[in-house]
């Protein structure tokens, strides 16, 4: 038994934002109340002055296992998740081999069960090998518990394949997650197309490269009556397309990353490869549109797109470095900064990090109502830290936020009643 006392409970799905005690037992939430008595034998956690939220869910991470273990493993990635306050992560299928079959999904599930510190939900591929040619065995993967499919990083170029995927996945209540990037427009661009790319002499990826595919996929999802989720939305134009689609009842949702909310393309000016990410960091006009879209609910979810790479891969010329940055361990303080600056309600922030991803993918958790899984995160809104590379539990050190002061870190992560991180110490090991 575990009693979390005196914290500010923010549970958007239950409509609660109040000081509450929470009693957890046998992996479930048992009771919520204003002043709960400590049952005999219960461990007490004093959360006074802290935020208590449903366990955070990151619906978009790259754990790199199997095949790319030099970058990250399920063990290291889920420990990074625990440090970041995440109790569940959904891992993208662009491993080696690509997670595109029942057997591979089960392999990822088995490794996760053995090595993982938090819950892992594999996302399957849309097409075999994410080659964009033939549908993967989505029905089989759904049977193994896959709730979403994506060819993340390799957008489905052919509209007909995307149409078929939406039609087919619908039968199994599997969400199609689209990485929207029209590659003939993105070309070999390495950063946002605009005055900064012009100044730095780097090839640009125009906003239109994302927007034309957002438009295409919304049209296809609408025609198919299927569920579409847009990954890492990054432009004002994409948001307007999603907003209009939602208004006419299309079953579309979207996510935004903390880095697209916090940084603009100005961060690229020192050629730091930690700022090379796809979609690229956009100009401030897009950043402010994204903040607005999250605040008004057009954007449903916050997801990190945690993308670890080795130091060697990133210690090269900007153009030669792979895209991606690590986000699991910095997401919460970055979002808390938006909350402090009154750009985002705490309820919206918590919903975007828990109940909304749970709803979009149909995952357990996302709320602390009695009977729910005992997945819980405690955040100390006043805790300030300057992270160094060695502080990150991820094998990837490719974060543009190292060395800067961040505030508002998770101090307790509980997965199914087990405390996996407490006071910034991992207990999962």
């Amino acid at each position, binding site marked *: 038994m575990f009693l979390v006392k005196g914290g500010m409970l923010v549970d958007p799905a239950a409509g609660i934002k109040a000081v509450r005690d929470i009693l957890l037992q046998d992996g479930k939430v048992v009771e919520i109340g204003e002043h709960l008595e400590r049952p005999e034998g219960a461990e007490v956690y004093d959360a006074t002055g802290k935020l208590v939220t449903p366990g955070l869910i990151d619906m978009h991470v790259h754990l790199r296992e199997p095949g790319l273990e030099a970058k990250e493993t399920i063990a290291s990635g889920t420990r990074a998740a625990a440090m970041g306050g995440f109790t569940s992560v959904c891992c993208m299928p662009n491993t080696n081999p690509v997670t595109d079959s029942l057997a591979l999904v089960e392999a990822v599930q088995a490794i996760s069960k053995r090595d993982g510190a938090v819950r892992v939900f594999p996302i399957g591929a849309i097409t075999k090998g994410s080659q964009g040619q033939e549908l993967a065995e989505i029905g089989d993967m759904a049977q193994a518990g896959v709730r979403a499919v994506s060819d993340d990083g390799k957008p489905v170029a052919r509209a007909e394949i995307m149409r078929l995927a939406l039609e087919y996945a619908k039968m199994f209540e599997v969400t199609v997650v689209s990485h929207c990037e029209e590659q003939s427009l993105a070309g070999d661009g390495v950063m946002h*197309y*605009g*005055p*900064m*790319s*012009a*100044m*730095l*002499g*780097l*090839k*640009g990826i125009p906003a239109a490269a994302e927007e034309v595919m957002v438009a295409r996929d919304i049209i296809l999802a609408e025609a198919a009556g299927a569920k579409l989720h847009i990954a890492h939305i990054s432009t004002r134009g994409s948001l307007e397309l999603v907003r209009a689609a939602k208004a006419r009842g299309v079953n579309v949702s979207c996510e935004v990353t903390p880095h697209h909310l916090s940084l603009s393309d100005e961060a690229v000016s*020192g*050629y730091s490869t930690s700022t090379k990410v796809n979609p690229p960091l956009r100009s401030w006009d897009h950043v402010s549109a994204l903040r607005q879209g999250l605040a008004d609910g057009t954007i449903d979810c916050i997801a990190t797109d945690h993308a670890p790479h080795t130091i*060697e891969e990133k*210690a*090269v*010329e*900007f*153009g*030669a470095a792979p895209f991606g940055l690590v986000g699991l361990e910095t997401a919460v303080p970055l979002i808390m900064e938006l909350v402090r600056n009154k750009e985002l309600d705490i309820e919206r922030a918590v919903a975007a990090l828990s109940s909304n991803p749970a709803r979009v993918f149909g995952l357990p958790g996302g709320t602390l109502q009695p009977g729910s899984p005992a997945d819980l995160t405690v955040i100390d809104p006043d805790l300030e830290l300057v992270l160094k590379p060695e502080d990150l539990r991820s094998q990837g050190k490719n974060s543009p936020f190292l060395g800067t002061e961040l505030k508002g870190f998770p101090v307790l992560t509980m997965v199914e009643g087990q405390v996996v991180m407490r006071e910034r110490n991992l207990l999962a090991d």
Partner: protein
Amino acid sequence: MWKRKDLLGIKELSADEINQILDQAVPMKDIIKRDIKKVPTLRGKSVINLFYEPSTRTRTSFELAGKYLSADTVNIAVSTSSVVKGETLIDTGKTIDVMGADVVVIRHQASGAPHLLAKHIKAKVINAGDGAHEHPTQALLDLFTIKEAKGSIEGLTVTILGDILHSRVARSNIWGLKKLGAKVRVAGPSTLMPPGLGDWGVEVYHRVEDALEGADVVNVLRLQLERQQKGLFPTIREYARQWGLNSRRVSLAKPGAMVLHPGPMNRGVEISPEVADGLQSVITEQVTNGVAVRMAILYLMTGGGVSDVPR
């Protein structure tokens, strides 16, 4: 005194720093004109030319600049180096560094490569052209050439003509000219124009005649012919007809306007032969000035010989 470790771009230089280099290049040019072109100023200093892209004039210019000042110069041709064995830029740089290099001159196809190198080595780094980012020594020699002929840069109207999008020469020139008070126009097809130039205080033209009217200086950029294959403009022929600099167009500029080109030229494409070889062309003078300006930079950056300043 020169304070910077590296010379990575013009954008971060002050007008004073630019003028310091231009002033120092004047006595250096005198050395080049002597019968015995050698002064002992940089004796005991080493300058490494690390060129990841083919280059004749910039590499030779740096090499001669070093030699005229008595520095030991070494050229590393990447095609015969360990780079082809997969060595990274940082490792190559560190190797050169521990051999005792004082200055590494780098030319690289990747924008920002000199910045990466400068962060990881002790030797001073000079950017000899990085991707489409900057080519500071080219801009400095262009500024020197203009200043030498016109007396001052301030108040001049300079038209940069051609493929601005891919041009590091254009970027460095724009920064330098603006800092020294010139009015800058750029002209070329919209598909070869980077976004946001208006924010830089530059006037953008698509009709070359408008851009040339009343200009004091025309700087014609090299057109990389493979851009046409990528579909950025229809044909070389149309490019030459729409944007090539010919005698008729030069006559729209001010009488006595200077014509510059960083080389190597595509004669008959971006510049007609009669303009390239005409009275208003200073293209060969630019090459001479390039050596003088690079001598000035090497001298200033290595804090060269306090007692034997070649004035």
